[in-house]
Protein backbone atom coordinates (compact mmCIF):
# COMPACT_ATOMS: atom_id res chain seq x y z
CA UNK A 1 0.00 0.00 0.00
CA UNK A 2 1.50 3.35 -1.04
CA UNK A 3 1.62 6.30 1.32
CA UNK A 4 0.39 9.04 -0.96
CA UNK A 5 0.39 12.82 -0.43
CA UNK A 6 -3.40 12.67 -0.03
CA UNK A 7 -3.13 10.22 2.85
CA UNK A 8 -0.36 12.27 4.47
CA UNK A 9 -2.48 15.40 4.14
CA UNK A 10 -5.32 13.99 6.21
CA UNK A 11 -4.05 11.14 8.38
CA UNK A 12 -1.73 11.18 11.37
CA UNK A 13 1.43 9.70 9.87
CA UNK A 14 1.74 7.27 12.79
CA UNK A 15 -1.16 5.35 11.21
CA UNK A 16 0.64 5.17 7.88
CA UNK A 17 3.55 3.25 9.38
CA UNK A 18 3.75 -0.30 7.95
CA UNK A 19 4.29 -1.97 11.32
CA UNK A 20 1.34 -0.14 12.82
CA UNK A 21 -0.84 -1.03 9.84
CA UNK A 22 0.10 -4.71 10.15
CA UNK A 23 -0.58 -4.65 13.87
CA UNK A 24 -3.96 -2.99 13.37
CA UNK A 25 -4.88 -5.52 10.69
CA UNK A 26 -4.21 -8.34 13.17
CA UNK A 27 -6.12 -6.55 15.92
CA UNK A 28 -9.17 -5.80 13.81
CA UNK A 29 -10.11 -9.36 13.03
CA UNK A 30 -9.40 -10.61 16.54
CA UNK A 31 -11.06 -7.89 18.63
CA UNK A 32 -14.22 -8.76 20.49
CA UNK A 33 -17.14 -8.93 20.30
CA UNK A 34 -16.83 -8.52 16.52
CA UNK A 35 -14.14 -6.92 14.35
CA UNK A 36 -13.68 -3.31 15.38
CA UNK A 37 -11.01 -0.70 15.93
CA UNK A 38 -10.77 2.51 17.91
CA UNK A 39 -8.02 4.80 16.60
CA UNK A 40 -7.33 7.90 18.71
CA UNK A 41 -5.81 11.04 17.15
CA UNK A 42 -6.34 9.52 13.73
CA UNK A 43 -6.59 12.57 11.52
CA UNK A 44 -4.36 15.62 11.22
CA UNK A 45 -5.86 17.68 14.02
CA UNK A 46 -5.88 21.00 12.22
CA UNK A 47 -7.71 19.50 9.23
CA UNK A 48 -10.31 17.91 11.46
CA UNK A 49 -10.88 21.17 13.30
CA UNK A 50 -11.65 22.74 9.92
CA UNK A 51 -14.10 19.92 9.25
CA UNK A 52 -15.77 20.49 12.61
CA UNK A 53 -16.11 24.18 11.90
CA UNK A 54 -17.55 23.45 8.47
CA UNK A 55 -20.03 21.00 9.95
CA UNK A 56 -21.33 23.83 12.10
CA UNK A 57 -22.74 25.42 8.95
CA UNK A 58 -24.87 22.41 8.12
CA UNK A 59 -28.52 22.02 9.04
CA UNK A 60 -29.25 19.36 11.62
CA UNK A 61 -32.75 17.91 11.81
CA UNK A 62 -34.10 16.10 14.87
CA UNK A 63 -34.81 12.46 14.05
CA UNK A 64 -37.14 10.61 16.37
CA UNK A 65 -38.49 7.09 16.25
CA UNK A 66 -38.86 4.10 18.52
CA UNK A 67 -35.23 3.15 18.00
CA UNK A 68 -33.52 6.54 18.26
CA UNK A 69 -33.53 10.21 19.01
CA UNK A 70 -30.75 12.46 17.70
CA UNK A 71 -30.11 15.24 15.21
CA UNK A 72 -28.61 14.59 11.83
CA UNK A 73 -27.63 16.39 8.64
CA UNK A 74 -28.69 15.13 5.27
CA UNK A 75 -26.22 12.80 3.64
CA UNK A 76 -23.25 15.05 2.95
CA UNK A 77 -23.30 14.22 -0.70
CA UNK A 78 -20.18 15.04 -2.57
CA UNK A 79 -19.83 15.76 -6.21
CA UNK A 80 -22.09 14.02 -8.60
CA UNK A 81 -21.94 16.31 -11.55
CA UNK A 82 -18.37 16.65 -12.71
CA UNK A 83 -15.02 15.85 -11.21
CA UNK A 84 -14.71 15.92 -7.45
CA UNK A 85 -16.67 19.08 -6.81
CA UNK A 86 -20.30 19.79 -7.50
CA UNK A 87 -20.64 22.48 -10.12
CA UNK A 88 -23.60 23.97 -8.32
CA UNK A 89 -21.46 24.65 -5.28
CA UNK A 90 -23.24 26.24 -2.36
CA UNK A 91 -26.57 26.50 -4.16
CA UNK A 92 -26.83 22.74 -4.61
CA UNK A 93 -29.42 21.43 -2.15
CA UNK A 94 -27.94 17.94 -2.24
CA UNK A 95 -24.39 18.97 -1.44
CA UNK A 96 -22.74 19.94 1.79
CA UNK A 97 -22.80 23.67 2.02
CA UNK A 98 -19.11 23.85 2.70
CA UNK A 99 -16.28 22.96 0.37
CA UNK A 100 -14.26 21.70 3.33
CA UNK A 101 -16.87 18.98 3.87
CA UNK A 102 -16.98 18.23 0.18
CA UNK A 103 -13.22 17.87 0.20
CA UNK A 104 -13.32 15.64 3.29
CA UNK A 105 -15.95 13.43 1.76
CA UNK A 106 -13.90 13.18 -1.42
CA UNK A 107 -10.95 12.09 0.69
CA UNK A 108 -12.91 9.47 2.63
CA UNK A 109 -14.32 7.97 -0.57
CA UNK A 110 -11.01 8.23 -2.46
CA UNK A 111 -9.31 5.15 -3.83
CA UNK A 112 -6.35 5.87 -1.52
CA UNK A 113 -8.30 5.97 1.71
CA UNK A 114 -10.64 3.14 0.78
CA UNK A 115 -7.61 1.00 -0.11
CA UNK A 116 -6.03 1.95 3.20
CA UNK A 117 -9.15 0.91 5.08
CA UNK A 118 -9.35 -2.29 3.05
CA UNK A 119 -5.77 -3.04 4.10
CA UNK A 120 -6.57 -2.45 7.78
CA UNK A 121 -9.70 -4.56 7.74
CA UNK A 122 -8.96 -7.18 5.10
CA UNK A 123 -12.35 -6.33 3.57
CA UNK A 124 -12.70 -5.26 -0.07
CA UNK A 125 -14.40 -1.87 -0.15
CA UNK A 126 -15.68 0.20 -3.03
CA UNK A 127 -14.19 3.63 -3.60
CA UNK A 128 -16.57 6.53 -4.30
CA UNK A 129 -19.34 4.76 -2.43
CA UNK A 130 -19.82 5.92 1.14
CA UNK A 131 -22.54 7.36 3.33
CA UNK A 132 -21.54 10.35 5.39
CA UNK A 133 -23.64 12.52 7.65
CA UNK A 134 -23.15 14.69 10.70
CA UNK A 135 -24.87 13.69 13.93
CA UNK A 136 -25.41 15.47 17.21
CA UNK A 137 -26.61 13.66 20.30
CA UNK A 138 -27.74 16.06 23.00
CA UNK A 139 -29.14 15.56 26.48
CA UNK A 140 -31.53 12.51 26.45
CA UNK A 141 -30.65 11.52 22.86
CA UNK A 142 -29.89 7.85 22.24
CA UNK A 143 -29.75 5.01 19.72
CA UNK A 144 -31.02 1.63 20.88
CA UNK A 145 -29.46 -1.72 20.08
CA UNK A 146 -29.42 -2.83 16.43
CA UNK A 147 -26.99 -4.42 13.95
CA UNK A 148 -26.79 -1.87 11.10
CA UNK A 149 -27.37 -4.56 8.50
CA UNK A 150 -28.60 -3.16 5.25
CA UNK A 151 -27.69 -4.42 1.82
CA UNK A 152 -24.11 -3.67 0.86
CA UNK A 153 -22.93 -2.10 4.10
CA UNK A 154 -19.56 -3.52 5.09
CA UNK A 155 -17.93 -1.09 7.51
CA UNK A 156 -19.69 1.32 9.86
CA UNK A 157 -17.56 4.23 11.02
CA UNK A 158 -17.71 7.11 13.42
CA UNK A 159 -15.38 10.13 13.46
CA UNK A 160 -15.77 11.78 16.83
CA UNK A 161 -15.67 15.58 16.89
CA UNK A 162 -16.27 16.21 20.58
CA UNK A 163 -15.19 14.82 23.96
CA UNK A 164 -17.47 13.23 26.48
CA UNK A 165 -16.67 11.64 29.81
CA UNK A 166 -17.86 8.08 30.42
CA UNK A 167 -20.40 9.34 32.96
CA UNK A 168 -21.89 11.75 30.41
CA UNK A 169 -23.12 8.91 28.21
CA UNK A 170 -22.98 8.96 24.42
CA UNK A 171 -20.67 5.96 24.35
CA UNK A 172 -20.77 3.49 21.48
CA UNK A 173 -21.60 0.17 23.10
CA UNK A 174 -20.70 -3.09 21.35
CA UNK A 175 -22.52 -6.21 22.49
CA UNK A 176 -21.72 -9.85 22.85
CA UNK A 177 -24.25 -12.10 21.19
CA UNK A 178 -25.44 -15.68 21.19
CA UNK A 179 -27.36 -17.32 18.38
CA UNK A 180 -28.01 -13.99 16.75
CA UNK A 181 -29.30 -12.26 19.88
CA UNK A 182 -27.35 -9.52 21.67
CA UNK A 183 -26.68 -10.34 25.28
CA UNK A 184 -24.28 -8.32 27.40
CA UNK A 185 -22.17 -5.23 26.87
CA UNK A 186 -18.69 -6.14 25.68
CA UNK A 187 -17.08 -2.76 25.07
CA UNK A 188 -17.87 0.93 25.32
CA UNK A 189 -16.09 3.44 23.10
CA UNK A 190 -16.18 6.82 24.79
CA UNK A 191 -16.27 9.74 22.33
CA UNK A 192 -12.99 11.61 22.06
CA UNK A 193 -12.28 14.27 19.48
CA UNK A 194 -10.36 12.91 16.51
CA UNK A 195 -10.97 9.26 17.29
CA UNK A 196 -11.93 7.11 14.31
CA UNK A 197 -13.93 4.07 15.36
CA UNK A 198 -15.20 1.47 12.94
CA UNK A 199 -16.51 -2.07 12.87
CA UNK A 200 -17.50 -4.74 10.40
CA UNK A 201 -21.24 -4.83 9.74
CA UNK A 202 -22.51 -8.37 10.17
CA UNK A 203 -25.42 -10.32 11.65
CA UNK A 204 -23.68 -9.98 15.02
CA UNK A 205 -22.56 -6.34 14.94
CA UNK A 206 -24.99 -5.34 17.66
CA UNK A 207 -24.36 -1.86 19.03
CA UNK A 208 -26.06 1.16 20.53
CA UNK A 209 -25.31 4.73 21.53
CA UNK A 210 -25.88 5.35 25.21
CA UNK A 211 -28.22 8.13 26.20
CA UNK A 212 -26.41 11.42 26.66
CA UNK A 213 -27.06 12.58 30.22
CA UNK A 214 -25.33 15.94 30.25
CA UNK A 215 -25.33 19.20 28.34
CA UNK A 216 -22.23 18.18 26.43
CA UNK A 217 -22.99 17.48 22.79
CA UNK A 218 -21.76 14.31 21.16
CA UNK A 219 -20.83 15.53 17.69
CA UNK A 220 -19.67 13.08 15.04
CA UNK A 221 -19.49 12.26 11.38
CA UNK A 222 -20.82 8.83 10.71
CA UNK A 223 -21.67 6.50 7.87
CA UNK A 224 -20.80 3.31 6.06
CA UNK A 225 -18.38 1.95 3.52
CA UNK A 226 -19.64 -0.54 0.96
Amino acid at each position, binding site marked *: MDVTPLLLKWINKKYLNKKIINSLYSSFSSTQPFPNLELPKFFQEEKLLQVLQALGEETFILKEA*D*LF*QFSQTADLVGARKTGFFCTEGQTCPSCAKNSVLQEFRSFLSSLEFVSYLSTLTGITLQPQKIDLSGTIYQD*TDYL*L*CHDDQLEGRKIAYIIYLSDLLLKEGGGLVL*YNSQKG*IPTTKAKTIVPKFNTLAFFEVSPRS*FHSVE*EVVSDTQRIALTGWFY
Partner: protein
Amino acid sequence: MITPAYLEKKTQTILRKSFYQNQELPSVQLRQVFDHEFYRKLQPEILSLSYQANRQLLTHSYLTAALPAPLLRLFHSSEFFSVISGIIGRPVQKVDFHAHLFSWKDYTVLSDETIEPAGIDIIIDLTEDWPEGAGGEIIYRDQEGNYFPLPSAPNMLAIVQRKRTIQKFVKYVNHYAGTQKRVLLLGRIS
Protein backbone atom coordinates in the same frame (compact mmCIF):
# COMPACT_ATOMS: atom_id res chain seq x y z
CA MET B 1 -65.23 1.48 40.85
CA ILE B 2 -65.98 3.58 37.76
CA THR B 3 -66.65 7.31 37.99
CA PRO B 4 -70.46 7.47 37.74
CA ALA B 5 -70.55 9.83 34.75
CA TYR B 6 -68.95 7.18 32.55
CA LEU B 7 -71.70 4.69 33.39
CA GLU B 8 -74.35 6.95 31.92
CA LYS B 9 -75.59 5.99 28.46
CA LYS B 10 -75.62 9.55 27.18
CA THR B 11 -71.94 9.97 28.17
CA GLN B 12 -71.05 6.70 26.47
CA THR B 13 -72.90 7.82 23.34
CA ILE B 14 -70.88 11.02 23.19
CA LEU B 15 -67.67 9.09 23.77
CA ARG B 16 -68.60 6.58 21.06
CA LYS B 17 -68.98 9.39 18.55
CA SER B 18 -65.62 10.76 19.60
CA PHE B 19 -64.08 7.28 19.42
CA TYR B 20 -65.08 6.72 15.82
CA GLN B 21 -64.30 10.25 14.67
CA ASN B 22 -60.78 9.27 13.65
CA GLN B 23 -61.40 6.52 11.14
CA GLU B 24 -57.72 5.71 10.81
CA LEU B 25 -57.20 5.11 14.52
CA PRO B 26 -60.45 5.15 16.48
CA SER B 27 -59.60 6.08 20.05
CA VAL B 28 -60.78 7.83 23.16
CA GLN B 29 -59.30 8.67 26.57
CA LEU B 30 -61.34 8.66 29.76
CA ARG B 31 -59.75 10.85 32.42
CA GLN B 32 -60.42 10.15 36.12
CA VAL B 33 -62.03 6.92 35.00
CA PHE B 34 -61.99 5.32 38.46
CA ASP B 35 -63.63 6.95 41.42
CA HIS B 36 -61.28 8.48 43.91
CA GLU B 37 -61.68 5.77 46.56
CA PHE B 38 -61.06 2.90 44.16
CA TYR B 39 -58.11 4.60 42.49
CA ARG B 40 -56.51 5.42 45.84
CA LYS B 41 -56.35 1.67 46.57
CA LEU B 42 -55.69 0.44 43.04
CA GLN B 43 -52.53 2.42 42.25
CA PRO B 44 -50.43 1.28 45.21
CA GLU B 45 -51.75 -2.26 44.85
CA ILE B 46 -50.54 -2.40 41.25
CA LEU B 47 -47.19 -0.94 42.28
CA SER B 48 -46.73 -3.60 44.92
CA LEU B 49 -47.25 -6.61 42.62
CA SER B 50 -44.45 -9.07 42.10
CA TYR B 51 -42.68 -7.86 38.96
CA GLN B 52 -40.25 -9.74 36.74
CA ALA B 53 -37.73 -8.15 34.42
CA ASN B 54 -38.64 -8.72 30.79
CA ARG B 55 -35.69 -7.70 28.61
CA GLN B 56 -34.64 -8.47 25.11
CA LEU B 57 -32.29 -5.77 23.87
CA LEU B 58 -33.58 -5.71 20.31
CA THR B 59 -37.24 -5.34 21.21
CA HIS B 60 -38.01 -4.35 24.78
CA SER B 61 -37.06 -3.69 28.36
CA TYR B 62 -39.56 -3.35 31.22
CA LEU B 63 -40.95 -5.07 34.30
CA THR B 64 -44.16 -7.03 34.08
CA ALA B 65 -46.55 -8.71 36.50
CA ALA B 66 -49.71 -10.75 36.22
CA LEU B 67 -52.75 -9.37 37.95
CA PRO B 68 -53.99 -11.33 40.96
CA ALA B 69 -57.38 -13.01 40.69
CA PRO B 70 -59.37 -10.41 42.70
CA LEU B 71 -58.13 -7.60 40.47
CA LEU B 72 -58.76 -9.63 37.34
CA ARG B 73 -62.33 -10.19 38.49
CA LEU B 74 -62.80 -6.46 38.95
CA PHE B 75 -61.53 -5.82 35.43
CA HIS B 76 -63.91 -8.46 34.13
CA SER B 77 -66.87 -7.03 36.00
CA SER B 78 -70.01 -6.06 34.13
CA GLU B 79 -69.52 -2.51 35.36
CA PHE B 80 -66.11 -2.24 33.74
CA PHE B 81 -67.13 -4.02 30.56
CA SER B 82 -70.26 -1.91 30.22
CA VAL B 83 -68.16 1.23 29.85
CA ILE B 84 -65.98 -0.27 27.15
CA SER B 85 -68.80 -1.92 25.24
CA GLY B 86 -70.88 1.24 25.51
CA ILE B 87 -68.10 3.15 23.77
CA ILE B 88 -67.01 0.66 21.12
CA GLY B 89 -70.58 -0.40 20.41
CA ARG B 90 -70.17 -4.15 20.85
CA PRO B 91 -70.07 -6.64 23.72
CA VAL B 92 -66.81 -7.31 25.52
CA GLN B 93 -66.14 -10.75 26.94
CA LYS B 94 -62.49 -10.77 27.86
CA VAL B 95 -59.55 -8.42 28.26
CA ASP B 96 -56.14 -9.87 29.06
CA PHE B 97 -54.39 -7.38 31.30
CA HIS B 98 -50.81 -7.33 32.43
CA ALA B 99 -49.14 -4.72 34.61
CA HIS B 100 -46.06 -3.03 33.19
CA LEU B 101 -43.51 -0.78 34.84
CA PHE B 102 -41.21 1.36 32.73
CA SER B 103 -38.23 2.97 34.45
CA TRP B 104 -35.16 4.81 33.23
CA LYS B 105 -33.66 2.97 30.19
CA ASP B 106 -36.83 0.94 29.56
CA TYR B 107 -38.57 0.94 26.19
CA THR B 108 -40.23 -1.11 23.51
CA VAL B 109 -39.20 -1.09 19.86
CA LEU B 110 -41.26 -1.96 16.80
CA SER B 111 -40.09 -5.20 15.34
CA ASP B 112 -41.23 -7.98 13.02
CA GLU B 113 -40.95 -10.33 15.98
CA THR B 114 -43.43 -8.38 18.10
CA ILE B 115 -46.18 -7.51 15.63
CA GLU B 116 -49.50 -7.39 17.45
CA PRO B 117 -52.64 -8.62 15.68
CA ALA B 118 -55.44 -6.17 14.99
CA GLY B 119 -57.62 -5.50 17.98
CA ILE B 120 -58.71 -2.98 20.56
CA ASP B 121 -56.06 -1.86 23.01
CA ILE B 122 -57.23 -1.13 26.54
CA ILE B 123 -54.67 0.94 28.40
CA ILE B 124 -55.02 1.99 32.01
CA ASP B 125 -52.52 4.63 33.03
CA LEU B 126 -51.71 4.73 36.72
CA THR B 127 -48.57 6.85 36.48
CA GLU B 128 -48.25 9.57 39.09
CA ASP B 129 -45.98 12.63 38.91
CA TRP B 130 -44.35 11.72 35.64
CA PRO B 131 -41.63 14.29 34.87
CA GLU B 132 -42.05 16.26 31.68
CA GLY B 133 -39.65 15.29 28.92
CA ALA B 134 -38.81 11.92 30.47
CA GLY B 135 -40.07 9.86 27.52
CA GLY B 136 -42.16 6.75 28.21
CA GLU B 137 -45.07 7.81 26.00
CA ILE B 138 -47.16 5.21 24.25
CA ILE B 139 -46.94 6.06 20.56
CA TYR B 140 -48.81 4.48 17.67
CA ARG B 141 -47.20 4.34 14.24
CA ASP B 142 -48.74 3.50 10.89
CA GLN B 143 -47.05 2.06 7.83
CA GLU B 144 -46.52 5.51 6.33
CA GLY B 145 -44.41 6.47 9.33
CA ASN B 146 -47.02 8.76 10.90
CA TYR B 147 -46.91 8.90 14.70
CA PHE B 148 -49.89 9.19 17.05
CA PRO B 149 -48.81 9.70 20.66
CA LEU B 150 -51.28 8.80 23.37
CA PRO B 151 -51.81 11.47 26.02
CA SER B 152 -50.68 10.39 29.46
CA ALA B 153 -52.40 11.11 32.76
CA PRO B 154 -52.93 9.22 36.01
CA ASN B 155 -56.24 7.38 36.38
CA MET B 156 -56.86 7.38 32.66
CA LEU B 157 -58.38 4.68 30.49
CA ALA B 158 -57.54 4.73 26.80
CA ILE B 159 -59.38 2.64 24.24
CA VAL B 160 -57.66 2.36 20.85
CA GLN B 161 -58.88 0.32 17.91
CA ARG B 162 -55.90 -0.76 15.94
CA LYS B 163 -55.47 -2.37 12.54
CA ARG B 164 -52.56 -4.72 12.10
CA THR B 165 -50.81 -2.04 10.04
CA ILE B 166 -50.67 0.22 13.06
CA GLN B 167 -48.40 -0.81 15.90
CA LYS B 168 -47.49 0.84 19.18
CA PHE B 169 -44.33 1.28 21.18
CA VAL B 170 -43.29 2.85 24.45
CA LYS B 171 -40.68 5.54 23.91
CA TYR B 172 -37.37 5.11 25.67
CA VAL B 173 -37.51 6.42 29.23
CA ASN B 174 -34.66 8.86 29.74
CA HIS B 175 -32.74 10.00 32.80
CA TYR B 176 -35.22 12.72 33.68
CA ALA B 177 -37.47 9.95 34.95
CA GLY B 178 -35.12 9.59 37.92
CA THR B 179 -36.64 6.90 40.13
CA GLN B 180 -40.20 7.46 38.85
CA LYS B 181 -41.99 4.70 36.98
CA ARG B 182 -44.58 4.58 34.25
CA VAL B 183 -47.29 2.31 35.63
CA LEU B 184 -49.51 0.82 32.95
CA LEU B 185 -52.07 -1.91 32.67
CA LEU B 186 -52.02 -3.10 29.07
CA GLY B 187 -54.76 -5.25 27.67
CA ARG B 188 -56.34 -6.13 24.35
CA ILE B 189 -59.68 -7.21 23.04
CA SER B 190 -59.15 -9.38 19.99
